[in-house]
């Protein structure tokens, strides 16, 4: 009887695998409608047969193993579970790899045509077939720089205020508020920027920078707050014991300890500002010029991708994808440096101990 049960189990698994493979293949095959209908019928039939076999197995008094059944030997389930977990983890590598491969592949045509001039030329002309990305790279860097210059003092100040100065009863609501504001979608800030702010300030690098600053401040503040709170209480009290005022305590105990983490938090905000599409696209003015004055209009990489993608010709699509790859690499570098700095500073603070 055991042999039959095992054979049935094997048959069931084989059938189930076949059905799944068939279904997946069918979903992706470029077949015609008739094939699709056959596929559906076959999958359903296979599923029905598999169900019958399953019932048959159950009827043979082999208890169906529920996952909460804690009795020992569940080798198949154990291996299956591990497979699933490994598979999910591999998915991350797969997706990232696919992104790298497909994007770079499609960026090659324009890079072959333009060579290094893609990054140094400031002419972007679709009907001449010339694509120079410099104005957009400049726009991204410039608006992010403006955003950082505005956001850093404010967000660090708020973080310090919340952690060191605010009365205890004010602390929790303030933290709640900041976290809530970090979740507001960027498109809402973009809407406000273009309808309420731009009519007064115009559409320029500065306006875009301000909107970005408003967006990244809650993010930097949240992170900075967490870093600052890891400061050892003993260090703070030591400073007070030596007669320091509160500000002196901050500069003596909190800032040196949190320096690394704060820099990391700022850079994470920078990465976010660089990748921001919507707010920039709406208020930056969409003019591909490299200008030093923040009151002039400009354009940024994600904004021009969003604006021009819809009707881009093949070479232009390749150019836009090349822009996307450039942006990707830039944000990755910033994020990597940021997390390295944060990790190092957290390790140091753990090493010092209370």
């Amino acid at each position, binding site marked *: 009887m055991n042999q039959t049960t095992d054979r049935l189990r094997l048959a069931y698994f084989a059938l189930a695998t076949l059905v799944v493979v068939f279904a997946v293949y069918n979903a992706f095959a470029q077949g015609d409608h008739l094939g699709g209908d056959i596929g559906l019928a076959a999958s359903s039939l296979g599923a029905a047969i598999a169900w019958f076999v399953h019932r048959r197995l159950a009827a043979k008094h082999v208890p169906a193993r529920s*996952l909460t059944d*804690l009795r*020992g*030997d*569940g*080798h198949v389930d*154990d291996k*299956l*579970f*591990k497979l699933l*977990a490994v*598979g*999910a*983890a*591999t*998915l*991350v*590598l797969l*997706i*990232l790899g696919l*992104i790298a491969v*497909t*994007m770079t592949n499609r960026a090659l045509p324009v890079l072959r045509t333009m060579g290094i001039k893609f990054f140094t030329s400031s002419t972007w002309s679709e009907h001449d077939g010339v694509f120079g990305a410099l104005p957009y790279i400049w726009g991204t860097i410039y608006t992010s720089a403006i955003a950082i210059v505005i956001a850093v003092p*404010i*967000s660090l*100040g*708020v973080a*310090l205020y919340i952690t060191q*100065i605010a009365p205890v009863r004010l602390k929790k609501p303030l933290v709640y508020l900041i976290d*809530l*504001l970090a*979740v*507001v*979608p*960027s*498109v*809402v*800030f973009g*809407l406000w920027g*273009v*309808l*309420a702010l731009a009519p007064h300030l115009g559409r320029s690098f500065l306006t875009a920078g301000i909107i970005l600053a*408003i967006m990244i*401040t*809650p993010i930097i503040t949240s992170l900075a707050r967490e870093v600052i709170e890891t400061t050892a209480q003993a260090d703070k009290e030591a400073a007070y014991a030596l007669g320091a*005022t*509160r*500000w002196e305590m*901050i500069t003596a105990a909190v800032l040196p300890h949190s320096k690394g983490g704060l820099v990391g938090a700022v850079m994470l905000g920078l990465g976010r500002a660089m*990748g921001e*599409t*919507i707010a920039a696209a*709406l208020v930056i003015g969409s003019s591909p010029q490299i200008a030093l004055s923040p009151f002039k209009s400009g354009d940024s990489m*994600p904004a021009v*991708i969003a604006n021009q993608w819809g009707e881009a010709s093949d070479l232009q699509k390749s150019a*836009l994808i090349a822009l*996307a790859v450039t942006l*990707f690499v830039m*944000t990755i570098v910033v*994020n990597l440096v940021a997390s390295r700095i944060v990790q190092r500073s957290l390790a140091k603070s753990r090493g010092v101990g209370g």
Partner: protein
Amino acid sequence: MTIPELSTSLDLRARPSWRRTKNTIMTVLLASTVVAIAIPLVLVMISVFAKGGKILFAHFPAFLTASIPPTRVAGPGMGPAVLGTLMTTGMATLIAVPLGVLGAIYLNEYGGQSRFARTVRFMSMVMTGVPSIVMGLFIYVVWTLHFRLQGFGGSLALACLMLPVVINAAEQMLRLVPNGLREASYALGATKARTIVTVVLPAAMSGIVSGSLLAIARAAGETAPLLFTIGAARVVNTSLFHGESTALSARIFENAKEAVVAAQDRGWGAALALVLLTFALTVIARVVTAIATRKR
């Protein structure tokens, strides 16, 4: 006997000095930064609630169910967008959360510090930094070109954005589960898989749920990945696989570019709906965490 004059350096009486002034100045400056950030944020919220509320609450619930009128016609109607946001984000959640939790389970329970696990962890961190528009282009190239504009493409893009966030949050929660629980389960004869599913996962569940809710809130607000993948429907589309869809975030973007006040008003209304949705998700996440901590 006269008391000798205390030298000034030993006189510990507090006296006005530039140090105290400096402290006061910095305190005021720090407090002013809070005001500095509060002003624009309050202005934004006022605009959203006032302008959006005017159309959302005045025409409740028509605003959330009616079809989108032509651009120039005044009147409420964001039904397709509300449904679209819920459906695309919901499908993205169905894809990203189970996969993300499974991935985190691998990283924390099976992988540990092995080279493969460290690579996955690193790549997951890299993936959190991918700009959302790059993700949108990626899905356009591998999916939309073959399957045309449909809501599911947007879900895929959002899922790719959510996946590393869920993995991160879930892994941290799993790490917090004390080893003693696992060991007790093994002692009772459970296999690893059963231990994870029946002991570890329930223990970390509240944290995973709140982390996932925050990831969902972020995904609901994303615009760029949806721009090239879901299309621009103006009537309700109940299918993610047939035909174009739309979403609140995409509609807000479209209406932000219009000059007609009627369209702009609908944009504000949609913005309010989206903000309320993300707020609700965040608050629920916090409540879940609070309940869990109280239980402990």
